């Protein structure tokens, strides 16, 4: 049978970076094809070329056996190609409906079409069991829901070839499962699907074949049936990946953080956090599990001083955090950081780094006042030396501290943030989604760092939606749902079903 898509000798470079070199492989019609590789391996670039977003420097693409020149996204769309991008391509201040209509409005006036499209969307939602309100505005939606909108867009446009670039990075297990349900349905309908993911289990679960890329080249393409996670990991990073990292025995020290009766309401009086209370001790990792959007982010924001609680008490090393008597959180993160609380923010691009600063400048963000030299000015020699050491220790690539951090891959940006916060030698470390969108090799090294931190006696509060990650790191697990803590487990009691129930709001009974 004709392959649906065939790449022949695709090459693409960005300046000196060779993103794709002589990439050739074929994707069978009606199959689900996995694409894996480290961060920066060239997966997204290749797919962007297929989608007409970039143009290849050389090589050709065949669709159904015919050479096609795909110069723009419009042309790709016209050829039946759809893509769900790694970073959402949604207009935040518009409704789902408008986002779906954008680019395929079907006439100059929107009004006559709107009702029909809305009806069709509702029908699609019902058929594929997608929980999306077509009239909701994007910025009111959770990440998971936004992901569903992206899928919805593609279903609406009835793409025959669907590219999904890391669609599951921000989804919960349940959301992923229902996405896969939909993909299987697509497959039954004869659509071709290309799935990029860093989660090898997903590759095994759903794909028919898998292509592995490294350094812009294809390392191999294998049928999924005959491969294992270990094989894939080996092909991806060229070495063995250890999933269960060794750790020192659980031996918690004195209580470091004591949260009592914490409440948070938003401007409209909606309760975001209710009755949050827990204790965190030195030398332990407490993970907060839960579907994203259930108050974890808000809790981290409060503890790091980025946001004020409505009421409640938070004691750090026996003293209350200075929330009282403040009208806003302006400058509070500084006070809290000075107490010895470090914070790896969940949204690294928004909060964690200044994209237009160099890597070096980003390594002092938040600690800028601690690094003064003569006359209160920066001692850039010392800072650069420190930065070089840090980049070496945490294996930040490329090892050039003058580069704008925006040019680094997400994984490498994350390493810089983690290194910065670790180097501050905190008593308490707040960690939000540390490995989102990061490849397996990097995940391993990030996990190593966090465990080393724990072993050295730092108290760590970890928010993660990845149960795998929770299992790999946590000593104790708190589960949150609807702004409340619905349950607590020790790591020995780890049980996916039980946690799933708690995440869904089933109370500790």
């Amino acid at each position, binding site marked *: 049978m004709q392959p649906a898509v065939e790449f022949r000798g695709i090459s693409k470079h*960005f300046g000196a970076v060779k993103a794709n070199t002589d990439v050739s492989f074929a994707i069978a019609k009606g199959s689900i094809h996995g694409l894996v590789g480290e961060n920066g391996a060239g997966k997204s670039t290749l797919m962007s070329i297929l*989608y007409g*977003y*970039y143009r290849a420097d050389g090589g050709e693409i065949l669709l159904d056996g015919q050479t096609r020149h795909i110069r*723009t*996204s*419009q042309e790709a*769309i016209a050829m039946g190609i759809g*893509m769900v*991008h790694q*970073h*959402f*391509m*949604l*207009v*935040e*201040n*518009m409704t789902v409906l*408008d*986002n779906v*209509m*954008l*680019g*395929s*409005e079907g*006439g*100059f*006036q*929107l*009004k006559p079409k709107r009702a029909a499209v809305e009806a069709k969307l509702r029908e699609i939602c019902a058929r594929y069991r997608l929980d999306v309100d077509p009239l909701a505005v994007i910025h009111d939606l959770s990440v998971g829901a936004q992901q569903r909108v992206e899928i919805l*867009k593609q279903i609406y446009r009835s793409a025959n070839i669907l590219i999904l670039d890391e669609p599951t990075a921000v989804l919960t297990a349940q959301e992923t499962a229902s996405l896969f349900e939909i993909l299987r349905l697509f497959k039954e309908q004869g659509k071709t699907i290309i799935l990029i993911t860093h989660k090898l289990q997903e590759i095994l679960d759903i794909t028919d074949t898998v292509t592995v890329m490294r350094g812009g080249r294809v390392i191999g393409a294998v049928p999924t049936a005959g491969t294992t996670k270990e094989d894939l990991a080996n092909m991806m990073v060229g070495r063995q990946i250890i999933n269960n990292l060794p750790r020192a025995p659980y031996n918690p020290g004195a209580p470091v953080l004591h949260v009592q009766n914490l409440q948070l309401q938003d401007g409209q009086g909606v309760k975001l956090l209710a009755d949050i209370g827990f204790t965190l001790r030195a030398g332990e990792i407490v993970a907060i599990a839960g579907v994203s959007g259930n108050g974890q982010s808000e809790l981290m924001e409060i503890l790091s001083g980025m946001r004020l609680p409505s009421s409640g008490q938070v004691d750090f090393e026996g003293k209350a955090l200075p929330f009282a008597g403040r009208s806003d959180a302006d400058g509070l993160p500084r006070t809290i950081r000075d107490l010895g609380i470090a914070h790896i923010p969940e949204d690294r691009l928004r909060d964690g780094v200044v*994209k237009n600063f160099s890597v070096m400048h980003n390594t002092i963000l938040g600690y800028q006042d601690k690094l003064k030299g003569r006359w209160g000015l920066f001692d850039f020699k010392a800072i650069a030396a420190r930065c070089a050491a840090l980049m070496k220790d945490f294996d930040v690539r490329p090892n050039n501290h003058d580069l704008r951090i*925006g*040019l680094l891959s997400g994984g490498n940006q994350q390493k810089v943030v983690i290194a910065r916060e670790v180097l501050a030698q905190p008593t308490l470390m707040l960690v939000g989604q540390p490995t989102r969108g990061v490849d397996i090799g990097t995940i391993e090294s990030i996990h190593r760092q966090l465990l080393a931190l724990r072993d050295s006696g730092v108290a760590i509060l970890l928010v993660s939606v990845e149960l795998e990650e929770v299992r790999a790191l946590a000593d104790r697990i708190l589960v949150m749902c609807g702004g409340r803590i619905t349950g607590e487990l020790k790591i020995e009691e780890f049980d996916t079903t039980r946690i799933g129930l708690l995440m869904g709001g089933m109370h500790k009974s």
Partner: protein
Amino acid sequence: MTFDDLHLGSILVSTVRNAPVLIFAGMAGLFAERSGVIDIGLEGKILASAFVSAAVAYITQNPWNGIAAGMLVSILLATLQAYVAITQKGNQLVAGIAINIAMSGLTFVVAQYIFQQGGRTPDIGSARLFDVVLPGTAAIRDVPFIGWVYAHLIGGHSVLVYLAFALVPLVHWLLYHTRFGLRLRACGENPHAADAAGVNVARQRYITMIVAGVLCSFSGAYLSIVQSGFFLRDMSAGAGYLALTAMVFGNWRPLYTFLGCLMFGFFAAVQIQIEGVDLPVVGRLPGSLIQMVPYVVTVIVLAGLMAKSVAPKALGTPFVKSR
């Protein structure tokens, strides 16, 4: 001071007459900025189209030729801005300011070169745009209040005034209820999303800038061939900046921008009326202090009433397909 001293009627009519310059430019700015291109060059485009409109209207003795020529020049400048913003990916603020400054000089130099009247065009005389007299005005004119409203408040203005007011619902419709508007807003908010959805961002922005250029040209034409009957150097007198202010004030939304323009028009009219009048409490304010009334009111309204204004997210950043 009695209520009558306020001459509310006069203020309202004056508001209606003052506002179009700002409305046209404000709507132009709105289009440009909602598509992601900062348009601080409104002032320059107003000035250029005011000059060309007056010059051509005078030479051909036909206001419509003047308007058409002004439109052409304004489109040209808008295209230049678009070229800088979209193709060159240059700094849009710089482009706008450059256009403002260059036009301030060029209009004078050319006007002086052609007409030798100190950067002024001759009075265009009968080539001015006529005022519309609504049907039945004569009959109803003497009916108290209603007659005045019909003959003076609603009627008796230039066609451009009606165009300006009609523009507000039109812009609203275009922006929110058409493909053009949907794509335009998407380009201003998240051009990457628009591009991925198959919208040609560059083309959309070019077209938008041209439409904005057309709208802006009416502002200039209104100034020179409706309000004044000739062109005078720097006669835009900051109208472009005020329009921009009204737009930011109106949170980049047509109706509120329109209200912002009306507010400026209204307070400019009030300011005229209270000059030299004994006011309660403060007494008679000196003229120079009264001049600040519209501006002080704007600041107060902005600080007191309005929620934070939120600019289109992609405003001012060129669309580049990489990080």
